[in-house]
């Protein structure tokens, strides 16, 4: 087991070095043309193994890859298999990538109990782990604001606190993607690379996104995150249970975001943040199921949402006991 891990880290490092070389070569070639490329590729040829050639082939195929929503079922299956293979070649990890569609009769919603949250940020850590976010840039989907005074607006809240929590007289308000029923981000996207699925989850096709970041400007809730650099996750920390529209490995220059842990929730599990919360402040469920806990909260608690005046209809409610 230990040996295997070491081997994985090793091959991962080698890959990273190679990758870096490759992209530098690409950049130069684009600008300087012939001579530099020829010299670089003779140097590279000696190193090239069968696996490297395969990876190159996969990346070439990926360039011509179609828009996910325009693919047939067979094309989707082939794409998913190719991506599993790519992840294996790049990280040495065997991952299972699911591509299950939305179940009929399901519309996901989320409720957050302000009275219960104590600001421990265990949800944040679980989210990063579950969703394979870039460790080097410390990317996080969830923000917890330490607040006093008014509810209903996070302005003036502090999301950078580093002291012990809870602090007397303060309360904590969590934000993440609210999976709006009327999402401004998907409307803004020029390529349709982000859209709302039938069960209400707003997803991104990481292979179709061009990285213009118009969705990030359009989002009223600061929910979207951009890969400003090549994301890196140590091989031994990779969560191998992945979904094609969720936590599969991302690349530099594309947008990503909370997907309500689509890889878990489409299998009937709770999102990682809900599971990790030590106080039970987080409730997740099917809004179309009249017996669900979230329906009970919406019916019996005084709830509010952030910036309701915008009309984006977030499916994320706050309430207090």
């Amino acid at each position: 087991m230990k040996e295997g891990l070491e081997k994985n880290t090793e091959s991962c490092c080698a890959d990273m070095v190679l990758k870096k070389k490759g992209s530098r070569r690409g950049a130069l070639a684009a600008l300087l043309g012939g001579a530099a490329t020829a010299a670089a590729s003779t140097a590279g040829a000696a190193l090239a193994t069968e696996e490297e050639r395969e990876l190159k082939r996969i990346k070439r195929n990926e360039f011509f890859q179609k828009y996910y929503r325009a693919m047939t079922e067979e094309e989707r299956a082939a794409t998913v298999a190719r991506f599993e293979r790519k992840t294996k070649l790049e990280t040495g990890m065997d991952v299972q990538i699911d591509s299950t569609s939305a179940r009929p009769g399901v519309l996901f919603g989320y409720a957050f109990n302000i009275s219960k949250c104590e600001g421990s940020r265990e949800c944040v850590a679980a989210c990063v782990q579950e969703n394979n976010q870039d460790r080097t840039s410390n990317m996080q989907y969830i923000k917890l604001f330490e607040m006093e005074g008014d509810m209903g607006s996070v302005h003036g809240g502090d999301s950078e606190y580093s002291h012990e929590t809870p602090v007397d007289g303060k309360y904590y308000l969590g934000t993440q993607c609210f999976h709006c029923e009327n999402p401004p981000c998907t409307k803004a996207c020029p390529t349709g690379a982000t859209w709302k699925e039938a069960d209400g989850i707003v997803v991104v096709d990481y292979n179709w996104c061009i990285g213009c970041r118009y969705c990030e400007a359009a989002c009223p809730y600061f929910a979207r995150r951009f890969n400003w650099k090549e994301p890196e996750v140590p091989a031994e920390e990779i969560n191998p249970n992945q979904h094609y529209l969720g936590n599969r490995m991302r690349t530099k220059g594309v947008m990503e975001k909370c997907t309500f842990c689509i890889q878990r929730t489409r299998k009937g599990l709770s999102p990682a943040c809900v599971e990790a919360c030590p106080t039970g402040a987080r409730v997740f469920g099917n809004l179309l199921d009249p017996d669900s806990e979230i329906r009970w909260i919406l019916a019996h608690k005084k709830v509010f949402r952030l910036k309701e005046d915008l009309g984006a209809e977030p499916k994320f409610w706050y309430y207090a006991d």
Partner: protein
Amino acid sequence: MKKFVKFIFSGLAVVFTGSVKYYLWLGLLLSMMLAGAYGYSVQLREGLVVTGMHDHVSWGIYISNFIFFVGVASGGVMLVIPAYIMKDRDFLNVVLIGEALAVAALIMALLFVLDDLGVVSRFWHMLPVIGFFHFPQSMLTWDVLVLNGYLVLNLAIPAYILYCRYQGKEPVKKIYVPFVFLSVFWAFGIHLVTAFLLVGAPDKSFWSSAILGPRFLASAFTAGPALTIIVFSLIRKNSVFKISDDTIHKLSLILMFAAYANLIMLFSEIFKEFYWSSEHSAHARYLYFGLDGHHAVTPFIWSAVVSNVLATVLISFRSLRENHAVLVPACLVLFIAIWVEKGLGLVIPGFIPSSLGEIVEYLPTWVETLVTVGIIGFGLFILTALLKVFIHVETGAISSSGGTSALAAEMDMAINKRLKI
């Protein structure tokens, strides 16, 4: 067809021949472009992390410049309307200069979008047919349409006219005038669409203003003619092509009125933000006075607004406006002031504070600066090339009857005879 190829080749020969001073100019532009290429190679390799942008301020000087140069491109219409529609003789002589400016500015604007993309090799995803064109929902797809359409119009109309003159024929009005009318509407369209790109973001209160579109037009119709006047004075100094004082005076009058309209709208915005300063005015407070000790852009906006007002006051006096020693520097000041106010001063405060009220500042890095310099160098090269061909055709230095299949060396002689450059 053969003739047209000859036209292109003699045009190219003209672009690459000239005096020592001209070669020095080309050398300067080339070094700007190389610096930009180097900066971009770093960005391609490392990702946009080498820029000053981050998740809070996710657009920086690239998009600021994009917006500004779309404005410069639509500013060309301030020559087109009096020339083709009001049939003003003076303007008719120089209108192609305005269209050359529009082409150069548009190419810069398009490059400023491309260099901002996370995965530039996927740009084809946003094209119709081969990609997925999210039209009409996404305002960016509208921009793809109007910018490329305007580029085609502004290349095709002048190319047709110049090619006719090159052959010694009069261009046929029936052929090109309908396209001129189309291009006038299109000029307004490109800048309105670009404004709506910002206005369409639902929670960016700094951009969410019905006046933003008209204000963009007013600042464009100031910056465009200001740059045109600078170019006119350079052409007068460096070539035998005649541009009359009258032409410049008329254009400076247009400039003056546009500058008034621009200031009126700027002050309307300032009134709205500061008379009753709500939570939504935090962006304007950040821009003009800083917020919670953060004031990276405050010095820029104040220099811009003050110099904008000063230059506008200067050109309000006829004696000063018609004195080129005042007019040209005033135009330069106006141009730069609008560049700062409309680019940096509009895009960046839109993100500060962020939509969840956090303040993270932005300043461009050296990589972004190099890439920006490179694109400006490339734009100036396009402008130089187009103007040089235009001047040579207009002064008859190249024509289909004048044996222009000649080699560059022969060209050089002919050019030096007719032109001082």
